[in-house]
């Protein structure tokens, strides 16, 4: 068994570092009947070689086709019989697996997921089936126009490889072979920077021992450095035969670990949290321009942005864009006391209600560890919200006025860009 360093952050929060670089974070919520886990493996799509875009996603598909002593059918049947509600996602930085279940099933479930990331079969005879699954994902994303617009916004805002969509490109996925997947898994499914979070009705001493026995002897391999390219920004229009135009806007903001993050989050909350928020009021309620409009913060470890979306019929798209951009710019003039008071009430009630969901806490504490290398208690976050003031947010907005917007539209015709849209690489 590997020596470990244990740390107790709060009475009900536990963290532990295995010598191989893997971190365990856990939160005891003994009023629940459930337990949820999140397993973040540093195998995100930013690690795909350019000519193999989609490899992380393909690998994620293949590792779920049998592992350890289970073939692909047994793997699914056992998890189903344990009642594990599960997810598997590839983001820029991680491939993550999640599961929620009745509390006493966690031990067996973790043992299966340990096999999944340490001993996947990657069966050759299912390789073409796996490829078809990945190709279908790309094809169906073509029909999801809001998603398509927002993917292009991310691509232009963050550049390669951090702005790329996880599912990759058709030609690349066609070109991936079995040894590519094998190599990707060997190089990236490893303990260094791996995070396992567990939240819910847990018995920490027993859980800790169980996790140590599963992952303690896992050996790390060095992770390769990632090459970055300069983002494109600017405006891009895609022609599409549709009665609606979809528009996405982004601008740079501070990332989650930044001291000013909650100032930025507060400002975006005034824009988009709740039914009295500015975008909902001005775009939908006062003008009836759309059904959906929102803005939200997106963060990587070392950079962040705000992304906004709306979809509207073609002849009203220009007005929708103009009103959205005007509202983004108006933020720099400051927010008001009532707006902040409402935002605080909403965020606080959401924080308290997180305690009704082990899955929600499990993913939050895993994200905290990734971004901050520590777990924030709900009280700590609550205090950060308490100290927000109009003055502090307005000071932040004066220094960081929304601007240099990246814009993507998809519909029958391109739009006139309002002042403030970045003109770099407008292609």
């Amino acid at each position, binding site marked *: 068994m590997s020596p470990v360093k244990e740390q107790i952050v709060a009475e009900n929060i536990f963290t532990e570092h295995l010598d191989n670089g893997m971190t365990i974070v856990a939160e005891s919520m003994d*009023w*629940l009947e*459930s337990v949820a886990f999140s397993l973040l493996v540093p195998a995100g799509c930013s690690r795909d070689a350019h000519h193999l875009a989609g490899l992380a996603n393909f690998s994620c598909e293949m590792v779920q086709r049998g592992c350890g002593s289970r073939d*692909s059918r047994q793997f*699914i*049947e056992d*998890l*189903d*019989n*344990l*009642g594990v509600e*599960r997810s598997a996602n590839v983001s820029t930085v991680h491939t993550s697996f999640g599961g*929620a*279940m*009745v509390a006493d*099933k966690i031990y067996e479930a973790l043992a299966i997921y340990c096999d999944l990331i340490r001993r996947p079969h990657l069966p050759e005879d299912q390789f*073409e*089936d*796996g*490829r*078809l*699954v*990945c*190709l*279908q*994902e790309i*094809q*169906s994303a*073509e*029909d*999801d*126009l809001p998603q398509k617009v927002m993917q292009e916004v991310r691509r232009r805002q963050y550049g390669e490889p951090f702005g790329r969509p996880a599912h990759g490109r058709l030609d690349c996925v066609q070109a991936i072979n079995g040894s590519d997947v094998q190599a990707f898994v060997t190089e990236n499914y490893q303990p260094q920077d791996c995070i396992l979070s567990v939240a819910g009705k847990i018995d920490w001493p027993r859980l800790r021992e169980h996790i140590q026995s599963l992952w303690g002897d896992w050996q790390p391999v060095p992770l390769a450095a990632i090459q970055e390219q300069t983002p494109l920004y600017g405006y891009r229009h895609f022609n599409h035969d549709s*009665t*609606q135009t979809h528009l996405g806007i982004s601008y740079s903001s501070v990332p989650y670990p930044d001291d000013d993050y909650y100032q930025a989050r507060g400002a975006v909350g005034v824009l988009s949290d*709740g*039914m*009295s928020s500015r975008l*909902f009021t001005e775009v939908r*309620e*006062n*003008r*009836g321009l*759309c*059904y*959906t409009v929102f803005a939200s913060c997106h963060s990587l470890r070392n950079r962040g942005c705000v992304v906004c979306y709306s*979809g*509207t*019929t073609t002849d009203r798209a220009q007005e929708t864009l103009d009103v959205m951009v005007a509202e983004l710019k108006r933020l720099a003039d400051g927010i008001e006391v009532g707006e902040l*008071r*409402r*935002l605080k*009430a*909403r965020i*606080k*009630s959401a924080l*308290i*209600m997180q305690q*009704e969901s*082990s*899955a929600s806490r499990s993913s939050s504490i895993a994200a905290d560890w990734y971004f901050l290398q520590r777990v924030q208690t709900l009280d700590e976050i609550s205090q950060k919200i308490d100290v927000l003031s109009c003055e502090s947010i307005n000071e932040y907005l004066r220094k960081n006025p929304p601007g240099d917007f990246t814009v993507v539209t998809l519909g029958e015709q391109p739009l006139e860009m309002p002042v403030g849209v970045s003109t770099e690489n407008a292609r």
Partner: protein
Amino acid sequence: MEFRQKTLDNGLEIIAECNPNAYSVGIAFFVKTGSRDETDQFSGVSHFLEHMVFKGTPQRTAADVNRELDEIGSHSNAYTSEEQTVYYGAVLPEYQDRAVDLLSDILRPSLRADDFEVEKKVILEEIAKYENQPPFGANEKCMAAHFRGHSLARNVLGSIESVGALTPEQMMAYFQQRYSSRNIVLVATGNVDFDRLVTEASRRCGHWEPFEAPRDTSRPASQSVLEIVHKESSAQEYVVQLADGPAAEDTDRHAARILATVLGDDTGSRMFWNLIDTGLAEYAAVGAYEFQGTGVFMSFLGCAPERTQENLQRIHDLELELESNGVTGAELVQAKNKICSHLVLQGERASNRMFSVGSDWIQRGRYRTLTEVREAYEAVEVDEIEAVLAKYPLTVNTTVAVGPCGDLTRPT
């Protein structure tokens, strides 16, 4: 956990599942009205009214309503279905009174003409949104074809024409036919102070007028047709199938839901192994849904256009196999494990319980604990599923396909 219940003098029912250990309170008004209570001329009025309810009352402007909902930190919304219009909010217990005050006030809306015209544009955008996203209205088209001539055929959102022609006066007339105190149930779950809830509701809703709001719940004669809607700009083909199933009041609905899980759950089901694991389809699943007087098995398929015909045949073969041989004991156990685990996970949030408790009450007039619901699934035997398959053959269905395929035939 304690169940409490009270009926006001005007017939408004108040029910609550009180859990003093919960962190929040879920509060909802379930109005027993939806698209099946409309006429074709006023198709979409229930859903449009649901939007207009947030547009203010004699005491509050639309902006007041939105502001106050945010002030109490509520996570509020509303939805309209064929049979229900539900207004709900999840709040911290300290805001229970204010939430009841707000939600009950907005249930007597002003329907002001200027708000009506702005909101009509939002509804038309909502209709356009669903027409432009997968499955491009295939589900509504399938309901329309399957229940042709019956009120369940009507689209919840209505059409651009029917919504476009609606007036505030017509909406008010509909409101006055359906929003009777006897047709509304106030549902609360979580950390509820029931006595206060009754006091507040009496004060706010005690004057609501009671009147009859009848609904025809006889079982409709369903169709079995194939419709193909050609949509060249779509990359994938989207198919929806509807077969008859048990109604909300039928006890075999639990067996039907287990059957749907065995055939078409999104993991570990027969369709999963046949179509998803093999990469032949991007999406293939089945769900069982109940209405008063009837029910459906609704299947979805999303796949590459060139594989659609072959995939439809595969689904047909899976259905035939089930109709001949039923489900295995192992499949039954696996489906029960999934459903029961899901119930526990869902039940942990007060707001989720609010929907389950409310639906049980308005569909069947009874309250069931989470344990009772679980036991109903646990009790299902293999032969009960065979009985469902015999009574509601899955192969007799209505199919609607939307996408680039111009030509599809019924599988044999």
